């Protein structure tokens, strides 16, 4: 296989991983206000994603794959809302450990990495096409 074809396949794996990362971020963002239903329930727990390197035997190069989608074990936040059905005896409700600012930066980073990989794909395609066009 041509090296440029390989590089666009590798970049495709990067795009796939970043797309999954954006999905996890959107889960966290969407559930930022998912409160528990009763006082002994827990609210939504933030999810995290990690990647790992995988050697692809077909092309003989390191690709990226999603290693694990885990949960963030940090403390839940508290909000004073005595009328809420999940409020404890002192009137506090547990809220998800999602910080929208962190999620926003995570999404921005994933977006940039995805675009970088997209550029790798388009540059390798352009180079291959131009090389073949030399025959014409």
């Amino acid at each position, binding site marked *: 296989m041509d090296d440029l074809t390989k590089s666009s396949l590798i970049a495709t794996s990067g*795009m796939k991983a970043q797309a999954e990362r954006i999905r996890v971020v959107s889960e966290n963002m969407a559930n930022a206000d998912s409160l528990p239903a009763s006082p002994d329930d827990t609210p939504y727990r933030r999810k995290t994603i990690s990647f790992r390197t995988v050697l692809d035997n077909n092309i003989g190069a390191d690709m990226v794959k999603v290693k694990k989608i885990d949960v963030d074990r940090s403390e839940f936040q508290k909000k004073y809302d005595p009328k809420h059905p999940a409020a404890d005896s002192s009137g506090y409700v547990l809220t998800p450990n999602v910080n929208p600012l962190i999620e926003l930066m995570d999404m921005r980073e994933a977006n940039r990495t995805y675009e970088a990989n997209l550029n790798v794909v388009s540059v390798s395609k352009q180079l291959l096409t131009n090389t073949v066009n030399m*025959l*014409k």
Partner: protein
Amino acid sequence: MPITTINSAIQAYTAAAKSFGAADSSSIGNGAMGTDALPAGADFASMLKDGVHSAIEAGRQGEQMSEKALAGKADVREVVAAVNNAELTLQTVVAVRDKVIGAYNDILKMPI
């Protein structure tokens, strides 16, 4: 590799034929085209045949991925990669064919 003589040009075409993995020696045109000096299966017809086969194979993979995508099973990025690959393989085969046919025509029109 500087191509300066007819011999080296012929060698370049032979190398192109080999790069497509030409291995079928029973193809049409073998011998009739005066390819005695070339290794078996390295003639233009089998080169083209193998090139077209790989293009068809790449096209089939692209179609399979598109079908999967329509069924919601495939990743969009993989579809794009497969279709791009098919397009490029076909372009390469067509370009090589045009080039060799052009050379053949040039020889045909050569005033003797």
